[in-house]
């Protein structure tokens, strides 16, 4: 199931990481042939997915990359 609303996906991702930092991972799939991006955050119990093929969503991809770089290196 894909989440349509970006803010919902972003907030839930952060929440999931905060509740389970040890197991939560973020994966980013890019398929060049279709120009399609799938963002997925999961802890093997809860699964959050977001997909896009729009150039205007690049900043969102960047946003969630930043989020996970920040969260994972937080002391």
């Amino acid at each position: 199931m894909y989440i349509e609303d970006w803010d919902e996906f972003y907030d839930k991702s952060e929440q999931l990481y905060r509740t389970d930092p040890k197991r939560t991972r973020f994966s980013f799939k890019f398929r060049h042939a279709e120009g399609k991006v799938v963002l997925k955050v999961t802890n093997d119990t809860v699964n959050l997915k977001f997909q896009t093929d729009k150039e205007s969503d690049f900043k969102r991809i960047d946003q969630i990359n930043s989020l996970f770089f920040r969260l994972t290196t937080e002391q």
Partner: protein
Amino acid sequence: MYLDNEAFLSALNKLYQTTSKKGSVWVTMKKYVDSDSNFSLKKPDRVKSDEEENKCLVRATNGKKKISTIVLAKDKAMFEKSYKNVLLINLDNLKVEKKKPTNASTAAKSAAKKSKV
């Protein structure tokens, strides 16, 4: 294959190039602490000490070749910037919407989306 930050990014760039016609690339990030990987201890005994740093483990694969790197907090800003550049170069066929969205129109759009929900 474990690589240092710089080598990882150039290898990632290559992964994207090999999949330009078919295939996908997955990039996964998760928290990494050294004590979790101390395989000489049993799982319950792998306790994180306070001075231990949280790091970011980044893995990438095209389904065949696997590469990984560990980003330290101090290298985060640099790595993040270079990683973004790799993506900018390789995510070159995303759809551009017909009307170039200005700040006002994207704000209106997200407002409209919210009201729908």
